[in-house]
Structure formats: C-alpha cells, structure tokens
C-alpha cells in the first residue's frame, strides 16, 4: 500500500508515513554500525535520499521497505567512507569496496548481515515473514504457528522452508560476489 502511494504520488506526508514505518528499523541498523549520535544523522540522510530519489523508485522491483534499507546501506557506507578519510587514513575507496562486499570489520560484518536479513524480510512479504520470525527468532513449533495463524501445518512448513532457503541463497550470493 505504502509502496504504491510512494511510487504514484510521493508527498511529504507519504514520506512521513514511510519514516514512521521504517525509521526505527533504519535507526536500529545504523546504531549497530556507529554511535547513536551518528546513527541519527544516517537516519536523516537516508530519508532525505529516499525523498530526493523518489522518482527512481520502481514498486515492480521490490517493496518500499527493502528499497529504503538499500539506501540506508549506502548511507552507512558513506559514513564509514567519510570517517576513514578524516580519521583513519585508509584509502577510502578500499574501505568502501570492503563495505560493499561486507568484509573486514566484524562490526560491519554484523551490520551487513542485519541489512541483508531486513532487506530479505521486506522482500518475502507476509505470511512468510511472520512465520520465519516466529519459528526462528521465537523458537515456536510449526504446530503452534499453524494454530495461531489458522493455517495448515504443511503450509507453514513449506513457507518456512522457502524463506530459510531464500535467506541462505541471498547470503551465498553476497559471499560469491565478494570472492
């Protein structure tokens, strides 16, 4: 719904709704990569970028949440690039390359994984998202999930199987790209 509203007529109000829906996610991701104060700046830069590049958003290529997380990924990389130039005296391009490939700093590795998970969760949509969260993160049995979502156990199992494989494939792709 929000994806279509954003693509068709991106008003500041729609941006505000997107911020309310995904701002907390972007902030949490950024906080994993840097101090909270810098993370606030990344949230701001992300949503300003979302606004300024709104014409390039294509709902056919994926939901708005996944697109926002992708932009957040770039703004987090920008932050580290700027930091490396000013403080670390490391070739910024080298570090940016490492960031794109998700290697090097263990903190950044964790951020990359979080970004990937959130991007994929936004992509897979419901009910797979809820099912995989309940099963993996809350350790609920398939019987419990089937019961609470009023869904056949077999359906829950096949959603779960597809969601897990999809996540694994995505990680393997990222890994292959960096090799």
């Amino acid at each position: 719904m929000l994806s279509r509203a954003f693509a068709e007529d991106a008003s500041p109000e729609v941006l505000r709704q997107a911020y309310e829906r995904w701002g907390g996610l972007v902030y949490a991701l950024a906080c994993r990569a840097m101090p909270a104060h810098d993370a606030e700046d990344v949230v701001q830069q992300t949503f300003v970028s979302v606004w300024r590049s709104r014409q390039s958003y294509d709902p056919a290529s994926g939901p708005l949440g996944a697109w926002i997380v992708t932009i957040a990924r770039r703004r987090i990389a920008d932050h580290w690039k700027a930091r490396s130039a000013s403080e670390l005296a490391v070739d910024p391009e080298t570090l940016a390359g490492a960031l794109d490939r998700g290697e090097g700093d263990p903190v950044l590795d964790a951020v990359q994984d979080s970004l990937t998970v959130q991007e994929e969760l936004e992509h897979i949509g419901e009910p797979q998202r809820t099912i995989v969260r309940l099963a993996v993160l809350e350790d609920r049995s398939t019987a419990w999930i089937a019961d609470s979502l009023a869904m056949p156990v077999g359906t829950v199992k096949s959603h779960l199987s597809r969601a897990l494989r999809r996540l694994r494939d995505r990680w393997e792709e990222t890994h292959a790209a960096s090799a």
Partner: protein
Amino acid sequence: MQHLPDETLAALALGEAADGAPHLDDCPACRSEVDSLRSTADRFRLADLPALPPPAGVWDRIAAEIATDLPADAEAPATAGASAVPPALPFTPSSGAARGLEEGAEVTSIDVARRRRRRFSAGALIAACAASAAVAASAAVVVVTQLTGEPRSIGVSEATLDPLGELGPSVTPARAEVVEQDGQRLLVVDVDALPEVDGYLDVWLLDADAQQMVSLGVMDRETTQLALPADLDLAAYPIVDVSVEPYDGDPTHSGNSVWRGALGG
C-alpha cells in the same frame, strides 16, 4: 536412496520432525543440507535486531531539509556521498508538494505537521471526549513557573498529565511544560519511567474537544523536548496527549492514550 523433502529438512534444521532424523545418519547429502539450513537460522538470529524509535527531532530535521528542496527545485539537488542516488526529477503537477507551491504556501516542516491533523475515529473520539471532560472536572492543573537552572528558558505553561487507558494503572502521572528557549517554544514532557509498549510513544496536542490534533513527535526518554511550530496557537490546542502508536504506517492517532492533561497559564 530417497532424500527427505525440503520441508522436512527445514523442520529438522529448526529442531523438529524427529521422524526424519534416522535418515540423516545414512545420508550425507541431507545431513549437509540440514547443517546448512541450521547455520542460516543461527545467522538469522544473530543478525536480527528490533526496531529502535529514532530520537524526537530527527523527523523534524528531515522535514526541514526536504522543505528547503522545494523552492529551489529547478536546481540540481545536492546529494551527499559518492554513491548517492540519482538526483530527483522536477516535480510533476500531480505532486502534493507542487500543489502547495502553486498556491504560494510556505512549505516548511510545520506544513508537514499540519497535514497530520486528523480526526479521531468514532470510538476513539468518544473515549477522548470522556477523558477531556474528566480533565476539565479536575481542578488540579496549572501553575506558571520559571524554570530554574536554565537561564535561557522561560516557563510559559504546564500541565499534569493523568494516566489513562490500559497502561494507566501501571504508570505514574507525568508533567508537561511549555518553555521558551532562544525564541523557540518547546514542549518538555517529563515521566518517572517510560512504560514498555508495543510500538512507540507519540506526543500530541489536541483541541479542547479532542477533534483536531497535531503530532509533535516521538517520546523516547524520560525527559523529552519537542519543538512547537512557531505559529501554533496553544489556546486552540491546549491538551497534551501521549499515545502508544504501533508500527503500522498509519500516521493518525491510535486512540490508545497513556497520559493526558490540559495546559494552562
């Protein structure tokens, strides 16, 4: 040898479907698939993180920054960073922001706040009216104070916010105060402890009938300062309200308030 179905392998990886387990002893291929899915699940657990509401004020800075784009839209917008996304194309006439420009409206972050004024849904409205009647009946409101210790702040008015709603019994009364600091009016909301909520806390100003409202921003700490729009008439919006808002993308008031009280002075 026949391999196990995908669904069974995934279930085994998550510690279920014991009836498929014996097969794993004899089948390296299925065993390796289960191991691989198990480490995917482990990695997923490590990578998960709950959303964290950004501090109040972040949205205002975003709104202010995009507002500065609007009049200067003919120029190429400056985007930060080498990997910046492509610059925005000019507004189309169908865009809401462009309509605002045509009418000569001053487009600022406050404009965004104005768009958020909404009516309650019928059920919430009844609850809100009952609550504001209760506030009117209570005489325990409002003394004008001078803030001590902050020389540049001048107390304008304040309110005691009474707990209400389902979280009401678990929280103590809160205080809200309007102060002026460097020519900017701020609403300072003070609570003894933030309640654990499913979503986030949003601070609103309501009119006396609780029909019109302005969202001021997120309350994420025990003392939260929120900027008041310069032209906002506090006499028209005298009631401070703190609500629990779920992350549902709906910008309107949830109807689920935790505190409410009337400003005076």
